[in-house]
């Protein structure tokens, strides 16, 4: 059992602006830990986390792979989140390069076919569309996902095939209302990406899934 990265330096004040690690974060950590051996075998060089929030997910991947064996890039549209990600990296004595950015935008075209591990725990809660748009960059934007909870996720899904290296893998967190089978079908039909649900569980009102995609 790998320990959860230390985020005791983040306070309730930080969590007014930044997503506090919750059940969705922890199912993602569990899915990554379950795949630890598989991930190490692939010898990843570039990890990119979208929407890093507190930074615990990237810090956890660094503890799986070893800090010096890969580059850990983390974007978030919320500047406070980028700051928290950097502080979490320092707290855990590892290196993460956080950027305030929309999805993976500034890495196009340089990361085409280069990302070995791509991770997104997106704002997935179904809300009115405006709420997802106006919320972007604030704490509301950490969970407000618009129509079917897919407004933000769909934009990233259209880029995954371009970003992933040939041996790259993509982990996505979703909930039942996002229609997981439909996501998997679309990714296969439009982008020839295979996928499987690697973990699912109920947490309170949410039925959470972690889906793993690859080009194999």
């Amino acid at each position, binding site marked *: 059992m790998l320990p959860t990265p230390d985020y005791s330096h983040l306070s309730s004040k930080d969590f007014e602006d930044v997503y506090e690690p919750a059940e969705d974060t922890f199912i993602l950590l569990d899915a990554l830990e379950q795949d630890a051996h598989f991930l190490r075998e692939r010898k990843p060089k570039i990890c990119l986390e979208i929407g890093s929030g507190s930074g615990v997910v990237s810090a956890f991947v660094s503890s799986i792979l070893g800090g010096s064996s890969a580059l850990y890039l983390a974007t978030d549209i919320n500047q406070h989140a980028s700051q928290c990600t950097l502080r979490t990296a320092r707290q855990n004595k590892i290196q993460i390069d*956080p950027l*305030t950015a929309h999805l993976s935008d500034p890495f196009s075209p340089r990361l085409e076919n280069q990302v070995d591990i791509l991770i997104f725990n997106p704002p997935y809660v179904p809300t009115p569309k405006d709420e997802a748009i106006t919320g972007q960059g604030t704490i509301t934007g950490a969970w407000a996902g618009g129509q079917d909870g897919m407004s933000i996720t769909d934009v990233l899904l259209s880029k995954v095939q371009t970003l992933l290296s040939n041996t790259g893998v993509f982990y996505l967190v979703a909930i039942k209302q996002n229609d997981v089978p439909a996501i998997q079908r679309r990714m296969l039909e439009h982008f020839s990406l295979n996928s499987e649900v690697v973990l699912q569980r109920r947490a309170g009102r949410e039925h959470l899934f972690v889906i793993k995609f690859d080009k194999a």
Partner: protein
Amino acid sequence: MVRLITHNLLACHAKNCTSNNFPLQFKDIEIELREAEFNPDFIRGFLPKLEWKALIDAAKQLGDTSLPSEQPEMIDDEFLKNLHHVLLEIHIEEGAMICPNCQHVYPISNGIPNMLLAEHEIG
């Protein structure tokens, strides 16, 4: 934080800015040096991913001239150590990155670059 390894992967993505938008130029930079663990395999494996000329230019802008202007054919330990330092140990804390094409300014503060565009700048 922006280190040169990450800078080497960033391009301007403002609306209609699709050519000559890489590498971003540094302006009014403050740097800090922080030691990082040397992993020769990682550096060696990263070498083919680098845009070498962009890296050399960026290092020069930060006052580091330890790397040769062409990627050497013989990769020895000294070269890998210099490259390690340039890629991973120089942290850009404050300043800005400017697009050579459209002049868009991407500010860096507290070690974090802000790559967000305003609504009307999104392509």
